């Protein structure tokens, strides 16, 4: 990690460890989420219901500048009335160590079903967003994102 005391430079061991750059921070990471774990996480959210495409739009840049902070925006077509509104929006990923990203809970007081945040993506992968409507229906959208790593090795 970072030394704030102003040491003049990394010693040899640290340079070797940091030579893998961000990889050293993930060296013994657990098995990544796979399609199977992502599917299991989605099943936890939707149960046995059928998930349809449409109504929800997931906005992610196709090529990401840095996987540490990827801007994500979701909008869902919905009148957001008491009778018919978006109850929740769940975001899933394919290759991070965990399949869940976030779950947003909305309601008729939201006015508009639109949320945005910034997420972490460990590698190029598919991100999926699923909206749960008040009538029990589920709608999804997916985006394939390419994540490149910083060109220069850091470690400081």
């Amino acid at each position: 990690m970072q030394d704030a005391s102003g040491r003049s430079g990394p010693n040899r061991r640290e340079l070797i460890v940091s030579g893998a750059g961000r990889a050293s921070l993930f060296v013994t990471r657990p098995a990544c989420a796979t399609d199977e774990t992502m599917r299991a996480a989605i099943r936890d959210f939707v149960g046995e219901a059928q998930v349809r495409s449409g109504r929800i739009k997931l906005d992610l840049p196709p090529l990401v500048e840095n996987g540490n902070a990827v801007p994500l925006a979701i909008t869902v077509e919905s009148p957001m009335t008491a009778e018919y509104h978006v109850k929740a929006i769940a975001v899933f990923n394919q290759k991070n160590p965990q399949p869940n990203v976030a779950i947003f809970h909305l309601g008729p007081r939201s006015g508009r079903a639109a949320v945005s945040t910034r997420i972490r993506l460990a590698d190029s992968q598919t991100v999926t967003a699923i909206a749960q409507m008040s009538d029990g229906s589920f709608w999804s959208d997916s985006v394939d994102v390419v994540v490149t790593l910083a060109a220069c090795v850091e470690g400081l």
Partner: protein
Amino acid sequence: MARALINVPAKAKRGDIVEVKALIAHPMETGYRHDIKGESIPRDIIKSFVCSYNGEDVFRAELFPAVAANPFIAFNVIASENGVLTFSWTDDHDQIEVRTAPITVE
């Protein structure tokens, strides 16, 4: 006390849908990183965020380690009445940061 920035329009017309933005300083330590000695850095994230409007929850978010550091969330709410929006962030140790912002609705 973690620094936080909230953006709520100070004034709105009744029934307008307003965008609310909330940003808080937090490393969102994933639990998957190791330090330079090879030791695991324990997970420490903000796991939930709630916005309530005059005491009633209008927006909630469950966050996982995949949310970026210094978490930023933007969402919408109907400006229904004068009052106060309350924002609370809860971390893995159940510590809660709270901020409020007034809203005047004409």
